[in-house]
């Protein structure tokens, strides 16, 4: 059959046959994925290690750097590329698990917006320079001949621990400076202060797994408090045989709150009042008399009716919470972000801790922790106070040289602190960074860091696990960019500029770490052997003999202020953090942007969460664009209506609203930190993160953009996809069986 003479009839015949084989022949079409020969390169090893087999991964141990918990991590490396990260089963922090932030560490490493070359500000813009030029600039400004005076230099970092902390301290000491600001917006700084004052240890060991009931005042331990991975594993034990009860008190539902048996949206700022009310109920109705005299009088003023009125909760709920604490002992009371983020935050947390003392939890569910014996290596977890003290110091005398590492104050500081303006007055700003974030973009010298998967380090977890462990970070693959350098390597270069004698023996940070671990006193190592270093690299961990001290039960003054109402700004602003974008540091990782918020299921955006009743009162509908105004400024976002929020609050998530930080982060959503009042907790000086009052009005335009949600429907549209039964019907028909 000649092809150009095909008739209509023949064509139909052909199609008829084709129908029978259609499912088969479809497989022979090289569709859009046409793999042409000779287009890709394939390169062999020059001389491979014996154990390397292309196509089969080799796992190396390292340490996750996505949050201060420093989980142990295993990375699968294939053909010289790291491809997958998992938890290290031997780590006491995460016992083999790794959260989504940890998994997304790969995208920080392979991020297309990495800084790949040193840059210096020339004529107002950052231009690429060579390392020799960069080091010469450093030597001129901060070397031993620079005449830099200790008071004129500062380090601004995120939480640090291990030998990185030792290096920073050594550099500060070499210049004679004590100015180290450790800035973390998502923190448990007030909890630590209260633990230190009342229990005699800032970092006690919490045993959720031993508790029968956990009462948490805004401690989102499954999401953003301490180490969510560590607590999730404790939580699973807490929830099994017998099943523990979780009571969560918070103004906006967190991941932990959504798992609670009883969720109480106390009016923001009244967490302490509620704690005192529960204490009152425990004393009067449950005969708990183990109350320090100092508290007795205070508690007596917080009767059920007063507390119900101030917190906006029903008396019945308060009674139930108190009864649970008594009946399901041992209990554990925690306090986190939404309890500590007020001007009287310390008082709220102290009132919660007082419940622990009353209920006899100290020694049962709160145990003495174990600390690494080397003070300098312990985690320096910092807090938001150092944002304020840094801004004050810049105002007062300023600095000649400031180093930035792992902190982004231009993004995290409230607008009221005028951080960007103040930084402009610093003579020489040096950013050690993987990315061009807002602070790095203002620097005079940018030193490109190797990624956390290419670098050496040692870390001590910020979370207390009961085991003193040093977690080793080692490169999982060769550097992607030849002109990036490890943090420790840069520090060694800078230290050599100040004190060449002490550090000249170390060619690089690897040599320094190896020497440090080799020379660690044998008595401090657990199971010390001759090949400690090899073992540490294989397991990723170095167990040491921890130091611990007994816990005390001390009282502090609790002075709970009367809650006030505010006519001009009737609502409380909740800058809510989530496991994902965290404080905004992960906004440049598309996996975490794409992973929906655990409560609202919204992706790639900011939103304003409101209670449906509040919205109805204000005439606001789902999806409306609203303007949220504080005394410091305003932001706009679309409304998401949800009942999991106090009627007195509006919540805007942290993490978006970047003006820089690469293609994935830039220009998405708003940053609620910008409109915070710079008020502080009176006792600790921590930023009162949840203490800002706002008003809500219609936004500038409704436009056409909608919030993008995974799912999209709140109901089953009558399809009974999941069969449900009400509790009382269940009780009547199947309960007690």
């Amino acid at each position, binding site marked *: 059959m000649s*092809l*150009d003479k*095909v008739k209509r009839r023949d*064509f139909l015949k*052909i*199609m008829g*046959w*084709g129908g029978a*084989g259609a499912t*088969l*022949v*479809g*497989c*022979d*079409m*090289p*569709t*859009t*994925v*046409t*793999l*042409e*020969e*000779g*287009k*890709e*390169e*394939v*390169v*062999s*090893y*020059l*001389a*491979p290690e014996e154990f390397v*087999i*292309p*196509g*089969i991964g080799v796992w190396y141990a390292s340490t996750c750097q996505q949050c201060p918990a420093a989980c142990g991590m295993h990375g699968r490396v294939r*053909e*010289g*590329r790291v491809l997958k990260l998992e938890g290290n089963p031997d780590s006491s922090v995460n016992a083999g698990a790794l959260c989504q932030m940890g998994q997304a560490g790969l995208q920080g490493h392979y991020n297309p917006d990495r800084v790949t070359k040193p840059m210096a500000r020339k004529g107002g813009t950052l231009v690429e320079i060579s390392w020799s030029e960069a080091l010469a600039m450093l030597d001129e400004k901060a070397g031993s001949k620079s005449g830099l005076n200790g008071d004129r230099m500062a380090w601004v970092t995120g939480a640090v621990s291990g030998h990185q902390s030792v290096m920073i301290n050594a550099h500060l000491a070499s210049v004679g400076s004590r100015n180290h600001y450790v800035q973390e917006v998502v923190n448990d700084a007030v909890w630590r202060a209260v633990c230190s004052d009342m229990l005699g240890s800032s970092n006690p060991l919490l045993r959720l797994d031993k508790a029968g009931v956990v009462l948490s005042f805004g401690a989102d331990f499954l999401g953003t408090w301490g180490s969510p991975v560590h607590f999730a594993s404790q939580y699973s034990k807490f929830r099994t045989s017998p099943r523990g009860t979780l009571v969560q008190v918070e103004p906006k539902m967190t991941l932990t709150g959504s798992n609670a048996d009883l969720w109480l949206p106390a009016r923001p700022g009244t967490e302490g009042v509620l704690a005192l009310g529960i204490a009152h109920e425990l004393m009067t109705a449950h005969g708990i008399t183990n109350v320090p005299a100092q508290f007795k009088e205070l508690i007596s003023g917080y009767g059920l009716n007063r507390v119900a009125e101030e917190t906006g909760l029903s008396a019945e709920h308060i009674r139930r919470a108190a009864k649970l604490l008594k009946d399901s002992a041992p209990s554990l009371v925690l306090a986190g972000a939404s309890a500590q983020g007020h001007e009287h935050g310390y008082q709220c947390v102290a009132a919660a801790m007082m419940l622990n003392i009353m209920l006899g939890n100290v020694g049962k569910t709160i145990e003495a922790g174990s600390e690494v014996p080397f003070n300098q290596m312990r985690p320096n977890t910092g807090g938001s106070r150092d944002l304020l003290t840094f801004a004050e110091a810049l105002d007062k005398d300023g600095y000649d040289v400031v180093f930035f590492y792992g902190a982004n104050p231009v993004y995290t500081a409230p607008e009221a602190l005028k951080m960007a303006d103040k930084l402009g007055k610093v003579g020489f700003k040096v950013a050690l960074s993987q990315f061009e974030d807002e602070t790095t973009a203002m620097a005079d010298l940018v030193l490109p860091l190797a990624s956390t998967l290419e670098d050496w380090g040692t870390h001590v977890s910020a979370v207390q696990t009961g085991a003193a462990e040093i977690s080793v970070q080692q490169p999982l693959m060769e550097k992607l960019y030849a002109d990036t350098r490890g943090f420790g390597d840069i520090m060694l270069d800078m230290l050599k500029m100040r004190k060449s004698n002490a550090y000249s023996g170390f060619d690089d940070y690897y040599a320094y770490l190896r020497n440090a671990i080799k020379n660690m006193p044998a008595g401090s190592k657990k199971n010390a052997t001759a090949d400690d270093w090899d073992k540490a690299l294989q397991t990723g961990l170095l167990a040491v003999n921890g130091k611990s001290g007994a816990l005390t039960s001390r009282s502090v003054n609790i002075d709970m202020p009367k809650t006030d109402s505010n006519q001009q700004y009737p609502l409380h602003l909740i800058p809510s953090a989530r496991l994902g974008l965290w404080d905004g540091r992960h906004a440049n990782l598309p996996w975490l942007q794409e992973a929906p918020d655990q409560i609202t299921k919204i992706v790639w955006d900011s939103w304003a969460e409101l209670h449906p009743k509040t919205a109805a009162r204000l005439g606001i509908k789902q999806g409306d664009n609203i303007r949220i105004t504080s005394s410091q400024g305003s932001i706009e976002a679309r409304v998401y209506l949800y009942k999991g929020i106090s009627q007195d609050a509006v919540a805007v998530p942290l993490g978006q609203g970047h003006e820089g930080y690469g293609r994935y982060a830039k220009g998405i959503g708003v940053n609620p930190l910008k409109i915070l009042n710079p008020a502080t907790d009176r006792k600790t000086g921590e930023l009162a993160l949840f203490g800002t009052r706002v008003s809500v009005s219609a936004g500038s335009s409704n436009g056409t953009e909608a919030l993008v949600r995974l799912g999209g429907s709140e109901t089953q549209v009558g399809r009974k996809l999941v069969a449900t039964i009400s509790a009382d019907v269940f009780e009547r028909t199947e309960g007690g069986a």
Partner: protein
Amino acid sequence: MSVTQHFSTGRSTFCGLKRTSQDRKVPGPVAFLLFCLALLMMSAPVFAAGTVPGAVAPPDTFNGDDVAQPIEFPHDIHAKVNQINCMYCHTYARRSKVAGIPPTSKCLGCHSIIATDKPRIKQLTEYWEKNEPPKWKKVHDVPDFVHFTHEKHLKRFVFDNDEMPVERVSEVCAFCHGEVKEMTVAKKTKPLTMGFCRRCHEANNGPFDCWKCHK
């Protein structure tokens, strides 16, 4: 290793039809019919009883491009003239999903002594002395969403096949790679499409679940 790009050139092969100058002149509807015919021919291949015991060799053919390599590696001299087993160099085939390009050190294992005066070996030695492996061009590939493993195929046709001596492994390799021992540099002579895989799995009782290959 250089980062590879899978989607760089878009679709330019269409069952290999578009390559001849004659086809380019064919008007649209007729080209479509030609395509239908081609599909029909492929849908009913004839499986010839092969020489590999306990196996049916796939009969499909494909006329691939000639690919210029950095060194014109003569497969014929190695595999045919000198009778070197395929797995001597592609040693990972029995252990891994990929057969692997032999490490440069393996080439030098022989060629630091043998045929050192030949131009191609001089070229190879230059690479070795620069500490740089040659950047070969990939000839055989399947998409990233296909999980193909050499290890399992060799197990089925050679190591678990009592009648098949390992010395004759090249006949099994030829199922998908064609008669490489007749070539200098490799050329794609089998279509490696899903239909090709599927028909062979059918003829040889291979697994048929979607997820066996699309994991």
